[in-house]
């Protein structure tokens, strides 16, 4: 059967048109941010430089793409329409008359839809894993930097131990299918997911120790929400069946958190050692505040600048790590539409077809670039103050 094609110009227009919910959302958000940028603090200052605007634009673009993925993509990312196998960009699917904008891959799936859906996987796992890594790194880095001594030696040794592992070897050992039969990923998940609960409990406890009315409410919320998510993620026993994660994804998630939390630990430890010599820390010590109050309410807020910059860079780095996992076929399902897996599939066939390889590579590159630009401009803004 003869496949009909639309022209290259129509492909460009068609792709831009498919993204219409993203453009609408972008115009609304960027417009609002522009008009109120004076009142938006650090976020508003981003709009003062071209680099910052570009960073915010690219990151928001992928965020909205992930949110509206089902509206944007014309096809199911896993659906195979056998006549469309290896078709070039702009091919018209005969039954529905919809268009394979970026062509079909070797399994006759729509490359465009797969790229759009791939953003969902990246934008869920990368920020969440970075968040958990931040929690682990902060909770361990603060006491290591503040107390020093034996705690510091031990924790630093452990962090260096993990950092000495080449990432790829770590992933080959931790994200193999066999390891799912052992309790290791669940034990590690159980350990890592405990940190946010500990962090927030201590945070509220140190602040509102003398105000039981506030304390009990906040602690209650932390424990109930934390315990609920914990039960759902680690034991997959969420009573309401809302929080659920695939064993595969849990494994990836845990491995990524494990690989990136020592980096956060090192940064937090360094910042803490620097900040604890400041006068306001000495003042708090003289007032008789408890060490954890000083760490969480005096040191941490003053370390936020570098930490925000690092978090941006780290989300980008985690995206690269996820791509690496996909590229080596570790963890994610082979038909998963994430960018790394798509790059792996397409790069083996580069000699015959190049069009399935380009959309996921450019998507991944642009998203990481957006995050890096954002981080760079944040760093510049925080240096100005």
């Amino acid at each position, binding site marked *: 059967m003869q496949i009909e094609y639309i022209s290259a110009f129509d492909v460009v227009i068609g792709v831009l048109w498919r993204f219409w919910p993203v453009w609408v959302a972008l115009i609304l958000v960027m417009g609002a941010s522009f008009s109120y940028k004076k009142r938006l603090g650090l976020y508003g200052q981003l709009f003062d430089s071209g680099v910052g605007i570009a960073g915010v634009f690219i990151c928001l673009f992928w965020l909205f793409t992930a949110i509206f993925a089902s509206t944007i993509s014309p096809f199911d990312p896993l659906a195979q329409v056998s006549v469309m196998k290896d078709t070039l960009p702009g091919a018209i699917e005969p039954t529905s008359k919809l268009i394979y904008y970026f062509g079909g891959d070797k399994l006759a799936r729509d490359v465009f839809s797969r790229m759009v859906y791939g953003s969902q996987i990246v934008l869920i796992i990368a920020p969440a894993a970075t968040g958990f890594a931040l929690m682990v790194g902060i909770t361990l880095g603060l006491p290591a930097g503040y107390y020093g001594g034996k705690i510091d030696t031990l924790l630093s040794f452990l962090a260096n131990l993990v950092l000495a592992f080449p990432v790829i070897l770590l992933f080959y050992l931790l994200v193999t299918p066999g390891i799912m039969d*052992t309790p290791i990923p669940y034990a590690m998940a159980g350990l890592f997911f405990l940190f946010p609960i500990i962090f927030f409990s201590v945070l509220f406890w140190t602040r509102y120790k003398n105000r039981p009315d506030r304390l009990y409410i906040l602690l209650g919320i932390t424990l109930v929400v934390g315990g609920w998510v914990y039960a759902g993620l680690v034991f997959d026993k969420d009573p309401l069946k809302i929080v659920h994660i695939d064993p595969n994804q849990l494994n990836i998630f845990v491995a990524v958190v494990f690989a990136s939390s020592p980096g956060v630990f090192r940064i937090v430890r360094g910042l803490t050692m620097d900040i604890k010599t400041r006068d306001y820390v000495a003042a708090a010590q003289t007032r008789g505040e408890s060490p954890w109050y000083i760490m969480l309410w005096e040191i941490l807020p003053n370390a936020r600048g570098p930490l925000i910059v690092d978090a941006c860079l780290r989300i980008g780095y985690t995206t690269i790590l996820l791509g690496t996992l996909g590229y080596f076929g570790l963890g994610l399902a082979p038909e998963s539409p994430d960018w790394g897996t798509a790059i792996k599939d397409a790069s083996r066939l580069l000699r015959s077809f190049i069009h399935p390889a380009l959309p996921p590579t450019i998507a991944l590159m642009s998203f990481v670039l957006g995050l890096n630009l954002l981080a760079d401009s944040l760093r510049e803004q925080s240096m100005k103050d």
Partner: protein
Amino acid sequence: MFSFIARRIGTILLTMLCLTLVVFFLVNLEPNLKKLAISQTEMHTPADQLESWLVNHGYRQNFFLRYGQWLGVLPKHPITDPATGKTTQRFSFCNDPTEPTFSGVLQGDFGCSTKFKTTVAAKLFPALGATGLLMFWVLAVMVPISLLIGILAGMREGSRTDRVLSVASIASTATPEYVSGVIFTVIFASWLGWLNGSAASASQGITFYNFTLPVITLAIYGIGYIARMTRASMVEVMTQQYIRTARLKGLSFGSVVIKHALRNALIAPFTVIMLQFPWLLTGVVIVEVMFRYQGFGYTLVEAAGNNDIDLLLGCSLVSVFIVLITQLISDVGYAFLNPRIRVQ
């Protein structure tokens, strides 16, 4: 200084011991041993024969006993037939001893690769040589380019050159190897046809045609990072008093940059380049798999994919050693290059 280095080497040895123990634990998990037994026996072997293969080849001995054997502090035993008492080699393709002997890493025996049917040393060291060659060319490309970009950008902070080069280096740090590899292959191999998209023939002899793509792919990710660090260091140096003094003395801008600023600005990038090695190791794995170059990374992936225990342990030992030794060199080198630290 000497006691500092001695203490660091002690830490390195301890770290290597801990890490190999962790790797040893992970490769000896039950599912991994099953996988090994299945790949080493005939197709459709019944479960009890798989088990007896594992017992015969010593994989069912105590965990610490086997770690000790691998390390070389406990003797390795050959397979003994319980009925006749006759001993046979564990792996005939590695010339394993027929009597209990101390033969571990400490004695220089890295064990036996079950995947490649040879000793680990025979497989690992040629692969390391191949990767060393790749690394040499990567560094030869990466270091001069990144230093040049960093110096040009940091020379006049905020200028148009600075802006352009900074955005270019941010873009290069946002491009992991598997992305730049695909893009370069598409441009230079598929469209222009100038270069070869596979480096498989590079094992026989490297040429510009088959080796350029892996080298630039690997270099591009590091260039941006080193260039940014060089730029930051250069910017800081250019604001120093002695630069202003030199300018006020009437020296030209060019000679101030080359004679006064460069030497001070290049101390920090040295550390960064050294600490770049762990990243390069991951990059090497991706690039070697992508371009089918038979080096260390390729060996590591084969070993991990087939749960080749001894080879994987050898690979992790080598990579951890490289990571830690470059850290040591960067610390010592930094103290050596920077007189302000040396005095303290």
